[in-house]
């Protein structure tokens, strides 16, 4: 099945609000994800990301606002909508009582997929996930990366139009993360639409065609990653390290940089042109520093602040 308007919105969220007790965790959130996009949803812990996803899946009712997923109104037709959606949850919840293949079979039955379709699809999914040799392995024998890949394969058992990934690579080593990213790129090239939440800025920068940063339940920015960075952050960054960083920052750095932030023993200097900064630093013996282009992490920190959220 294809939605009524190919190229249109696969997910449309308008004016979403959700309150728990006295605090409103989602405060009037609106965004649209178009067909074929990889949309990154970024925000610190407690920003309202997971609540938003749960509302989209129809697992909790919003207090206000409208949601339309794969062309169907949620929560009213959430069950029908979920038939065409795949979900990779934040926490691994593969079925430990089953083998790799059985996990896919059993999950496929929740979608009422017939046996013939399943037995055609499962080997291809195992191949895709790099788990063909593990078909009969019990879940507890899999590494963290394998479990995540199987979870991704499980989310594809219904050949969904739309994939929701909640922190798909948290806790994985770099090799395992790259494998997941390759898989996701493959899915995007097949025309799938993806909604991704993540804490890894490099992940968002690599995969997302468009990003939204949310904090305290409201959207504070939304655009393609490079555009967002260009719009909000000076293009060049010099990081100055060590005991001397603060002294140097107060004596010279603040005067030369357009914007300077101290975090622990590091001074982050933001500038349109880093040459004056670099020239000054070259005369300071014993000061260590790094010159790099601005990235998504700079943007994220600028928009959401440096203090911890737990």
């Amino acid at each position: 099945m294809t939605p009524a308007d190919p190229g249109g919105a696969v997910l449309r969220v308008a004016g979403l609000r959700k309150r728990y007790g006295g605090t409103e965790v989602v405060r009037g959130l609106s965004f649209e994800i178009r067909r074929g996009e990889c949309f990154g949803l970024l925000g610190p812990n407690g920003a309202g990301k997971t609540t938003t996803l749960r509302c989209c899946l129809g697992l909790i009712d919003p207090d206000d606002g409208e949601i339309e997923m794969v062309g169907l109104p949620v929560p009213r037709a959430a069950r029908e909508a979920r038939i065409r959606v795949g979900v990779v949850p934040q926490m691994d919840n593969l079925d430990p009582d089953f083998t790799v293949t059985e996990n896919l079979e059993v999950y496929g039955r929740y979608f009422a997929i017939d046996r013939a379709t399943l037995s055609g699809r499962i080997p291809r999914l195992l191949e895709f996930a790099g788990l063909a040799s593990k078909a009969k392995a019990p879940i507890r024998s899999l590494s963290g990366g394998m479990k995540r890949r199987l979870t991704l394969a499980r989310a594809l058992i219904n050949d969904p139009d739309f994939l929701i990934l909640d922190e798909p690579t948290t806790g994985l080593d770099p090799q395992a993360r790259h494998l997941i990213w390759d898989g996701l790129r493959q899915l995007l090239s097949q025309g799938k639409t993806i909604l991704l939440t993540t804490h890894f800025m490099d992940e968002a920068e690599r995969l997302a065609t468009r990003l939204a940063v949310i904090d305290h339940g409201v959207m504070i920015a939304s655009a393609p990653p490079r555009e967002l960075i260009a719009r909000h952050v000076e293009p060049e960054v010099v990081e100055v390290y060590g005991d001397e960083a603060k002294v140097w920052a107060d004596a010279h750095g603040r005067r030369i940089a357009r914007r300077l932030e101290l975090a622990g023993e590091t001074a982050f200097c933001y500038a349109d042109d880093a040459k004056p900064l670099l020239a000054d630093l070259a005369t300071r013996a014993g000061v260590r520093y790094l010159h790099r282009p601005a990235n998504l992490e700079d943007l994220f920190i600028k928009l959401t602040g440096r203090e911890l959220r737990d």
Partner: protein
Amino acid sequence: MASAYAVPEVSLRFVSVWRRNFLVWRKLALASVLGNIADPLFYMLALGFGIGALVGEVQGMPYVAFLGTGMVCQSAMFTASFEAMYSAFSRMHVQRTWDAIINAPVSLDDVVLAEWVWSASKAVLSTLAILLVLLAIGYGRTWLVLWILPLGFLVGLCFGAFGLIMTGLAPSYDFFTYFFTLVMTPMLLLSGVYFPVDQLPAALAAVAQALPLSHAIALARPLMRGEVPAAIAQHLLVIVAFASVAYYVALVLVRRRLLR
């Protein structure tokens, strides 16, 4: 999900979740059945023959058969409660299996229904196992005895729902101990498993009349003797009422716990 108190919104997709539990059970079926029946079997044979030699016939049947019929109902109660507490709690809270399932087009109401029916299905299995032992040693050789299987299912629904209430409330496995102390033990001792309820003082006998297990036993014993029980409707009504109210309470608790 409109409200935690809404009418159950279930679909036939619950069968796929029931089947999931069945497939897991099938992997360990033998151990599971042995575990279910070993305890009641030892009690039935040891007490049945030991005490049976002292008391002879009770309610027109040999004590082994009398006790065995009580054990059939008791084991349905135990099996369903265990499944709906320890096993369902593992799936809900430890393995997060329910979370995975409700991302598919299966509602939480379907999952709870599946767990409920599954706990009762296991109760039927243990009912059957103990009935077979009774048949093997020469008791209950009447077609009427087959009615004890659906009765075991009802008892399973009743106590499976109680178990799911505990699961909906439990912070950890330890919490289930309350159920054993406060519900199961009095239920066992007052429902006429070991001796006829009318042996009890009037006050306690009145309490017994309010317990679903005593109504199940009141139906099972005549069936075992090959007689049609008296007051079938009243007995069934009590069990069904307990089962339905407890199911609804369990559903509300689980919704409030998971759909937040």
